[in-house]
C-alpha cells in the first residue's frame, strides 16, 4: 500500500464533480476496502474534513472499511428476487460459508454481501460472483457457485470449452501473418509480436485461442504495465483507435484475414479484448 498510489488517485479526481466519491470508489476498487491511512491522506490532500470523509465512507453501501475477501459474492435481494425466494439463497450461502451476509470467510477468500437490486429482475434470484452473473439461482446451485468462486470464475478449460476457438491475425500495416507456426501455446501455433516497455524490447507470444489468456514472454512484463506492440515483420506499431473500456489503456488492433479486427488491451494483466467481425468497414 503505497502513498503514491493514493496520491495519484486523489490527483485524478480532485477537480471533478463528485470528486470525493470518485476518489473513494477508486481506492475501494484498488484495495477492495478503504484503509484508514488512505482516508487520512484524502483529508490531508483535498481539504475535506476527516469527519465528512468518514461520513461519506460509511453512508454508501459500496464502501467497506474492512478488507474484503479475494472473491465477492453478491446476492440480489431486490423485490423480484425476494418473491422468488432469494432469502433462502442468502441463507444457504451463509450456512455453507459459515458467515453472515456482509462478512468475509476467515481464510480471506470470500466476502458475501446482499445488494438491493442488480437490475436483472426477470431472471431472479440473481447472484454475481466477481462480475459474473448467475440467474434463476436456487438453494441447490449454491454449493457449485461457491466452488466456482473459489476456483476463479473466469477460469476456462481450453481443451473442452466450445466457446474457445483459434483465430488467425495479421499485421494491419504489412498484412503478413502474426502466427508463429514454430511456437505452440495451448496446442496451437501462437501469435508473435514484439513489445517494448521501459527500455526493454523483446518478443511476446500469445495464445491464438480467443478466450485464452496464456502468454509467454522474453522478458517478464510487470502487471499493470502498458506496453507498445509492434509487428515482427514490418516493425510498425500495432496501435489501435480506441481505449480499453475496463482500464483506459490504449487497445492495440490486428486484422483478421476474412474480415474483422481483433482489439486487445495493451495493459499487462487486463483481460479486455474484443473481436469485431465488421470493424474493418468503419
Amino acid at each position: 500500500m503505497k502513498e503514491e498510489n493514493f496520491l495519484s488517485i486523489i490527483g485524478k479526481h480532485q477537480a471533478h464533480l463528485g470528486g470525493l466519491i470518485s476518489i473513494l470508489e477508486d481506492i475501494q476498487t484498488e484495495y477492495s476496502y478503504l484503509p484508514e491511512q488512505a482516508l487520512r491522506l484524502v483529508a490531508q490532500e483535498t481539504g475535506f474534513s476527516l469527519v465528512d470523509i468518514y461520513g461519506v465512507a460509511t453512508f454508501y453501501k459500496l464502501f467497506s472499511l474492512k478488507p474484503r475477501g479475494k472473491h465477492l459474492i453478491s446476492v440480489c435481494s431486490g423485490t423480484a428476487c425476494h418473491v422468488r425466494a432469494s432469502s433462502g439463497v442468502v441463507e444457504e450461502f451463509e450456512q455453507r460459508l459459515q458467515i453472515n451476509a456482509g462478512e468475509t470467510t476467515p481464510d480471506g477468500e470470500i466476502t458475501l454481501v446482499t445488494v438491493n437490486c442488480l437490475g436483472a429482475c426477470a431472471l431472479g434470484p440473481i447472484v454475481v460472483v466477481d462480475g459474473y452473473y448467475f440467474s434463476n439461482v436456487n438453494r441447490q446451485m449454491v454449493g457449485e457457485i461457491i466452488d466456482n468462486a473459489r476456483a476463479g470464475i473466469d477460469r476456462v478449460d481450453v481443451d473442452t470449452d466450445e466457446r474457445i476457438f483459434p483465430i488467425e491475425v495479421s499485421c494491419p500495416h504489412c498484412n503478413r501473418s502474426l502466427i508463429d507456426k514454430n511456437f505452440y501455446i495451448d496446442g496451437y501455433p501462437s501469435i508473435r509480436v514484439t513489445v517494448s516497455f521501459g527500455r526493454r524490447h523483446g518478443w511476446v507470444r500469445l495464445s491464438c485461442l480467443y478466450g485464452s489468456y496464456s502468454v509467454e514472454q522474453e522478458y517478464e512484463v510487470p502487471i499493470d504495465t502498458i506496453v507498445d506492440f509492434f509487428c515482427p515483420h514490418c516493425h510498425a506499431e500495432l496501435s489501435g483507435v480506441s481505449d480499453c473500456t475496463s482500464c483506459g489503456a490504449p487497445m492495440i488492433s490486428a486484422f483478421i484475414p476474412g474480415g474483422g479486427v481483433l482489439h486487445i488491451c495493451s495493459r499487462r494483466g487486463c483481460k479486455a479484448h474484443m473481436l469485431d467481425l465488421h470493424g474493418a468497414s468503419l
Partner: protein
Amino acid sequence: MKRLRSIEDFESLQSRIMTDHDAAVPTIVIPAGTCCQASGANDLIRVAKRELLDKKLTDTVRLRITGCQGFCQMEPSVLVEPRGTFYPKVGMKTMARIVEYVARDEVLADELFMSPDTGEQIERQEDIPFFRNQVRTILSRNEKIDPLFIYDYINNQGYSTLAKVFKMADPDWVINEVKVAGLRGRGGAGFPTGLKWEFLANQANGHGKFLVCNADEGDPGAYMDRSVLEGNPHGVIEGMIIGAYATGATGGVIYVRNEYPLAIKHLIIALRQAREVGLLGENILGTGFSFDINLVKGAGAFVCGEETALIRSIEGKTGEPRQRPPFPVQKGIEGKPTAINNVETWANIPIIIEKGAHEFAKIGTENNSGTKIFSLVGKAKYTGLVEVPMGTTIKRIVYEIGGGPVGDARIKAVQTGGPSGGCIPADLFDIPVDYDSLSKAGSIMGSGGMIVMDDNTCMVDIAKYFMNFLKDESCGKCFTCRKGTQRMYEILDDISQGHGTLEQLQLLEELAQVVKDTTMCGLGQTASNPVLSTLRYFREEYLAHIQDQRCPSGVCRALITYSINEKCKGCQLCLDACQQDAISGKKKELHFIDQSKCIKCGACKSVCKLDAIDVV
C-alpha cells in the same frame, strides 16, 4: 473518428452511412444486456463469431450485439433480420446451427418460440403475443443499435433530431414541443417535463446551469433505465443535448448507480465517441453551442434517487436530502440552477422531436401521453420489459403480455412503484396505468417496476420486506423516517411471528400515517405506502396472522409447518437436501420431518418432484 464541423458535415456522414448499409444482408442479432449475459449471451456471441470465422461467412452474414430487447424470460435469445425470426432460450449448440441456417436463409423450425396456449410455432418476433401487444417506441431502438458504435446509432436516424433542432435554432420551440407533447417525468412523480425546462430556461444564466440524467434506478424490481442506457446510450445523450440547447444549460451530468457496470461501460464509450465526433463539447456541429456531459457514479444508496440527495451525492457528499424550497431548478448542483430528469424521460425527447408533439400526444391518454416501460417481473409467466401506451390496463399487461400466472397459482396483486409504491389487488386490474389512477389506488407509478404476486406471496411478508429495505436505505436524518420505518418493521415482524396484537395493528396504521406526514423527502413521505396499501386491500391477511396465528400464503416461517404426505416414495432427495438433518426415513418408505429440528427453510419442498411436501 473525424470531428464533424457543421450540420452539413453531419448530414452527409449520416446519408453516407445509411447508403452504405444494406438492410437486406442477413443479420444475426444477439442481445447482450446484463440480464442476457446472466443467462449466457456472451457464450452465444463467442460461438457465433467462431462459426462465422470458421465457415468464412463474415462477408455474407452480419452479427450485431445489442442491448436488452425485453423478453428476459426467454433469454438468451437471437433475432435474425431482416426476416424477424426469433429464437428463444438458445444454447451454444443451437447457436452454431442458427448461423448455418441463416447463411442458407432458412429457418431453424424446431427452435422457434412455441405458443403455450395453442402449441403452434411462431416465427417472427412481432407475432409473439408478448411483443405484439406492446407499443415499443423506445425499446424497439435497442435491437437496431450496437451501443458500442455511434455510427450504428447515426445509421438509425440517430442525432438527426438534434440536427433538426439546431436548424430550427429556436430554443423556445423545443420547450413548447415538449410541453405540447405532454411528456411527464418518468421517474415517478410525473412532473411535466416542459414546465421544468421552462423554469430552468427562465433562471438567470450567470454562472451556468446543469441538466442531470437521473439513472440511479434504486427501485428494486425496476430495470428499464438500465436497459435503455445499456442498449441505447446515445438516445439519452441526444435527448440531453436537445434539452441543454432548449434551456441554455452549460453542463450535464449522468448519475448512474454503481450496480450497473455494463451501463457505465456503454455510457463511457458513447460519451467518448460523441465527443470525438463533435456532438459534445465546444462548438457542437459548428453551431457555437457548447455542452458536455460528465458521468458520475453512485455508490449504493437508494435515497440518492431523490433530487436533492442526488445533487448532494453529485457534489461528493452524503446523500442526505434537504428542505425544498429552494427547488433544484433554483438552487441545485453547487448552488446553480439544475433540472433533473429520469433516463426514460430523456430517451423520449428525440422521439417527440422526431414524431412531432401532436403525434406524440396522441399516444396514451389525456394528461398521460406517450408510452411507459414497465419491468414486469415476479410471478408472471413471461417476465421482462414491457412498453405500452400510458393508460393500458393492468389486466392487459399482466395477462395478455405477461401471459398470466405461472402454473396453477392465482395472481392476487401487482406491486408498483417499488418501496414507495403499493400493492394493487387483482379486482382492481381494470384500472388504467397512469400517474393519477395509480395514486388514487394507493400506489404510485414510480419508475415502472411491476411485480406480480400470486397466492404464494404473503402480503405481510411483502410489507415487512419493504420496511426492512427502507430502514436500511433511509438516510436517517428525519427522526420519523428513521425510527418510524424501524418501528413499523418491528410491528410487522411481530405479526409475522404470530405475536402481533390488534392494538399493534392500530398503532401500525397510526404510525404509518404520521411517517407519511412528517418526513421531509419523497422517500419518507412514501415509505408507508407498502404498509398502508396492503392494510387497505389485504387486511384479512393481517388478521389471519394475528387472530388465527396462520399465514395463508405459507410464507411466514413461525406460522407454518412442513410435513410429508403419502405421495412420498422415499426417493431421499429431501433427506439429502435438508441441512438440519430434520428428515428421516428409509429408502422407498414414507419420510418424516422432525419438527423440533426443522427450520422451515423450504429446501425439501424445492427438491421434491412428487409434490409430497405440505406447507400448512
